[in-house]
C-alpha cells in the first residue's frame, strides 16, 4: 500500500500551479518555458499515478507522448527565444508586446 490516488493528484496539482505561476509571473521567456516544463511534468505525475490506480498502462504510455511533446516544445521554444533575443536583445515578454503595438512583427 503506498498512498491514495488523491494524494498524488494533489501533488500534481501543486506542481502544476507552481509551473503556472512561473509561466504567468516571471518576466522572462526562458523562465516561462521552464514553467511549461514544470506543468507538463505535473501532468506526467498525475498520469503515472492514475496508471497505478487503475492498473492500466495507458497512463504510462501517455507520459511517453508527454515527454515527446515536451522535448519538441522546448527545442522549438528555445530556438524561438533565441530569434527573439537576437532581434530585441532581450527576453522580456513585455518587449514583444511593445513591438506588436508598433506594428512590427517580432
Amino acid at each position, binding site marked *: 500500500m503506498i498512498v491514495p490516488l488523491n494524494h498524488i493528484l494533489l501533488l500534481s*496539482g501543486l506542481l502544476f500551479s507552481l509551473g503556472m*505561476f512561473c509561466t504567468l509571473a516571471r518576466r522572462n521567456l526562458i523562465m516561462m518555458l521552464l514553467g511549461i516544463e514544470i506543468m507538463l511534468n505535473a501532468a506526467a505525475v498525475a498520469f503515472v499515478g492514475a*496508471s497505478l490506480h487503475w492498473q492500466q*498502462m495507458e497512463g*504510462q504510455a501517455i507520459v*511517453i507522448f508527454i515527454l515527446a511533446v515536451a522535448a519538441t*516544445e522546448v*527545442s522549438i521554444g528555445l530556438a524561438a527565444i533565441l530569434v527573439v533575443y537576437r532581434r530585441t536583445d532581450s527576453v522580456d515578454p513585455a518587449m514583444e508586446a511593445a513591438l506588436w503595438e508598433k506594428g*512590427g512583427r517580432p
Partner: protein
Amino acid sequence: MSILTLLFYAIALLIVAATAMAVTRRNMVHAVLYLVLSFFGTAMLFYLLGAPFLAALEIIIYAGAIMVLFLFLIMMIRLKKLPGMFFPVGQLLPAIFICAGFLAVSSVLVGGNPEGWTPMPAAQASPAAFGVYLFQTHWLAVEIASMLLLVALVGAYVLGRRVRGPSADTRKEAP
C-alpha cells in the same frame, strides 16, 4: 503507514521544495539546477509508482537533455542585465490569484472523488511489458511522435539559423 508511504511523502516534499526554489530564483542557472533536482525527485516518484522505464526516461530526457538545452541557451544569450523588476506587482498578484484559484478548484475536485481515498497497492510495469504494450497498442502514435520530433528538429534548425538577409535589418529599422 508503510515505508513506501513515508518515502512518497519525502519525495513529494523534495519535489515541491525544489520546484518552488526553481520558480523563485533570480539567477536562471540556479533555477535550472533546482529543477534538475526536482526532476530527479520525479523520477524517483515514478519508480515508486511502478514505472521504472519512465523513471529512466525522466532522468535521461528531462533532467538530462532538456535541462542541458536550457543551460546552453542561458549561456548563449549572456544577458547584459537581468529584467528590471523581478516580480512586477501587476503581474504577480493576478498570477498568484489565478494559481491559488486553480489549486483550490483542483483540490476540491480531487477531494470530492471518494474512491480516490483508498490507498493503492504497489505494482510495477516492467520495461519489457511496457514496451510490448506501447508498440502493440500505440504504435501509430509513437510514429507520429517521432515525426513530431523530426519536425521539431528541422524547425529548431530553421529558427536558430542566423539570418543575414535584408529582412533582419529592415526589421530593426522599421519601428
